[in-house]
Structure formats: structure tokens, C-alpha cells
């Protein structure tokens, strides 16, 4: 909205929400095109028709952009509540070249990774949030055994870091530090205390950022920590930071 009004593209705190105070102070509806595209169909065929599709709280259909380690990539429209397994295995055709699906990333850089054991989860707004992800605009990236989940987290953090507008400190400065921590882990120079700092900073950025970009930037990291923590731990060095740097013990502890 700021760009439309000729200003620098940065968000403003909400409330007030755009529906109340948006472009030039006027009530504004700002939604994804897919959301608006549903409106004529609902008007034409009735709200009851729309409400009959989907789950109790997530009505209608959703378009997903299915990509990654899956035979059939492309746009898929399914009723909300369809299981993730149906989308990636039946419609997507499963992993190519004999691979095994490890995780499905939903919601893009703002989302999280759903591990393979949870593929029977129905795809709806609440279920995804409960699992630590989001629907977002419907991105769905299938990952197999060759995907490094820590690298997935770092990749999405890099995106958020580069796309941050710079207005608020947690997102502008926090994503840089989070990216640095993830890179240290991947480079094999991090210890347990780096993972602890990663988690603490993720939580802070999530709760103090001004807009959705900063608020959801930690999601890929938090969800991979939740479901794929072993991959992080496998990359960590043991011992104290000084020991890891090979610094000699200068004085013996007393007593």
C-alpha cells in the first residue's frame, strides 16, 4: 500500500487494519488474487455451496504450487482438508528416481516443514499452524532424503534477510544474526550454545517484528528444529568454545 501511495515500501503497525484504514486512509481490501478470485464464484453459486467444500473452519478450495522432489510439478487445486499424502503421492506422483519423501515445506519462506510421518495431515489453515507451518499462498515444496534440513532453514532465512525492508530492528538485524548462526552450524563450527542462541533469537524475532515477514522468518528454522533436530545436532562440535578453537588451558582450575 505504501508503494501505491508513492512512499517507500514499508509496513505500518496494525491495528488499524487496512479494511478500516488503508490506502490514503480509506478502507482497503488487500488480499491475494486467489482470495478475490473466489468471490465471483461464491456470489454466483451461493455461500452454502462454497461452505460445503472444505473443513469446518477452512472452507472452499486452495491452489497449491507443487514443486521439488515430486514427479508432477505444477499448480494443483484441491478442496481444503485433502491430506498432504494425497496431494504429493497421488496427484504429485511421489518422489522421482526411487527417492523417499522426507518432508513437505508449505508456505514458502514463511512456512515450516512437515515431516513424512505426518503426511496424512489434512491440509487446512489450523492443522498447518498446529504443526508449526502456515498455508501462506500455497507453496508446497517436496523434499527427499538428499535434502539437508539445516540448509533448507538457512536458505529460507537468507531470503527473508535479503527481502527485509529494514524498518524494524528484530527483522533487519535479527535475520542477519540468525542466518549467521545457521551458516556457522552448516560450516561445522557451531556448538550447542549456538543452537540455544538460535532458538532464543528465533522466538524474539517472531514476537517483536513489525510485519509478517519478520514474524514468520523464523518458521522454517523453528520447524526444522522441531522435527529434524538430529540433523542440527549431527553438525555440532562438542566441548566449550575455547576447546573447539584449540586454545590451550592457561591455568589449571584451583581446588
Amino acid at each position, binding site marked *: 500500500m505504501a508503494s501505491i501511495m508513492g512512499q517507500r515500501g514499508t509496513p505500518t503497525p496494525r491495528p488499524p487494519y487496512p479494511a478500516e484504514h488503508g490506502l490514503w486512509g480509506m478502507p482497503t481490501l488487500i488480499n491475494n488474487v486467489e482470495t478475490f478470485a473466489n468471490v465471483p464464484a461464491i456470489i454466483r453459486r451461493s455461500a452454502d455451496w462454497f461452505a460445503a467444500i472444505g473443513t469446518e473452519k477452512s472452507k472452499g478450495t486452495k491452489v497449491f504450487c507443487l514443486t521439488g522432489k515430486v514427479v508432477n510439478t505444477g499448480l494443483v487445486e484441491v478442496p481444503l482438508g485433502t491430506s498432504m499424502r494425497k496431494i504429493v503421492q497421488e496427484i504429485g506422483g511421489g518422489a522421482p528416481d526411487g527417492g523417499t519423501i522426507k518432508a513437505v515445506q508449505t508456505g514458502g519462506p514463511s512456512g515450516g516443514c512437515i515431516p513424512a510421518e505426518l503426511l496424512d495431515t489434512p491440509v487446512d489453515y489450523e492443522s498447518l499452524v498446529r504443526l508449526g507451518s502456515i498455508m501462506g499462498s500455497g507453496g508446497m515444496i517436496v523434499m527427499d532424503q538428499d535434502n539437508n534440513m539445516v540448509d533448507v532453514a538457512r536458505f529460507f532465512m537468507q531470503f527473508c534477510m535479503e527481502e*527485509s525492508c529494514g524498518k*524494524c*530492528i528484530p527483522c533487519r538485524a535479527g535475520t542477519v544474526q540468525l542466518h549467521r548462526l545457521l551458516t556457522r552450524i552448516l560450516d561445522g563450527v557451531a556448538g550447542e550454545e549456538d543452537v540455544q542462541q538460535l532458538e532464543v533469537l528465533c522466538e524474539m524475532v517472531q514476537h*517483536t517484528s513489525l510485519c509478517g515477514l519478520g514474524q514468520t522468518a523464523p518458521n522454517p528454522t523453528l520447524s526444522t528444529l522441531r522435527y529434524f533436530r538430529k540433523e542440527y545436532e549431527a553438525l555440532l562440535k562438542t566441548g566449550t568454545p575455547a576447546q573447539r578453537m584449540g586454545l590451550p588451558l592457561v591455568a589449571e582450575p584451583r581446588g
Partner: protein
Amino acid sequence: MSVVTLTINGQLVSARADDTILLAAREGGVHIPTLCYVDGLSEHGGCRMCLVEIAGSSRLQPACFMKVSEGMVVQTDTDRLREYRRMIVELLFAEGNHICAVCVANGACELQDMAIAVGMDHERFEYLHPCREVDLSHDRFGIDHNRCILCTRCVRACDELEGAHTWDVAGRGSNAKVITDLNQPWGESPTCTSCGKCFMACPTGAIFQKGDTVAETKHPRAKLEFLVNAREKKQWNV
């Protein structure tokens, strides 16, 4: 103008219906820390220091922006908020090159004061040591970007109080910086009136008067609100 009653940190506070939590708290004797907010300029909502907890919502809200409502229950100083505030200051110190010992604003710097206030006795993030410029092309003022925290007070002061809009922000994310006009040296700016309102507003030693040496700069920040009151309410005698 109607009056609302809200609870801040367990005490009842009366406020005007269109007051922000920040101002209502101040009237009630409760101090909420701020970095990008300064009296006399519009609110920005960027530093996130003034975030408060509001009962009934899981979302933290910036007190500088959020309007009060009847029966609102606000907490401004929980352990969680204190920890977040300290981390914000640590992120700022790691992001720039804030070296108090050689800074004109040493001793009169809002960032320095805030570090003390949040109990930052050491830095827990890695210093990024960015390469940032110093622009001394203006004959009266200078800007040291190493000290800039992108609070945008200079942008707002120049736009709202002087009307010149010389300052703005270019770039995004950690590459964002304040610029004069079309990213020209400040001394070559055709719009700058040399009024010094940006200097008045700056919380750190980023924008300074030439001639000040270490620890000599004292930004007259109260002049911003004085100007607004003089113009709008015709109050000249403080």
C-alpha cells in the same frame, strides 16, 4: 473528547480516547522505553522497544502506535519484555560500529543510555563490523553512518517540521541507509536548508555539528516538540 480508563501495570490510568498507550502511560507516571519515538515527530513503530503486552491478545503492540481503549489491561515491564528490549539493543550494537570512546555523543546518547537501562553489560551477538561512510560535505553538519540506528527521526524531522524532505531511506534490510536527496553528498543537497532539525532529532552521534569533539554533542531534542507546540498551540513560553 471522551475519557477512557485503562489499567497499566496494575494501576488505573485515565486517558483521552485517542491517546496512545505511550502517552497515557506517561501521564500515569509509567515510563516505556523508546528509541525511534521522540516528542514532536510522528510515530514510526520501528524500534520495537515500546512493545507492551495487552491482556486478551497474544500479540505484542507498540505503545507509541496503539491507541488506548476502555478497560484495556496493559503490562509494560514483564521479564519477557525486558529480555526483548535488551536483545534489540544488542542487535543494534552488533549491527553498526558504535564506539562510544571516540564519539561526539558519548555521555549524551540515547542508545548508550538505553544499553545501560536494559542492563546490557556485554554483547551476545557477533559484531558485524560493516563498512559504512562518513559524510562531511556539509559545511555545518556531518553524518557518521556507523552510528546510525535507522530510527528515521531525521527523515521525519526534515519532512514534518522543516518541510524540505531532504532525508529519506534507501536500500533495504541491513543495507538500508539514510540518504540526502537522490543519494548525493549532503553538502551538495539543493533541498537542505541547514536548519539543523535532523541534528536536534538524532538519538546518537550519527548526525553531529561540525566543531564538536568527543563527548561534546548534546542534541537539543526538546526543541522539536517546542516547535510543534509553538506552531500549533501558539505556546512559546516554556
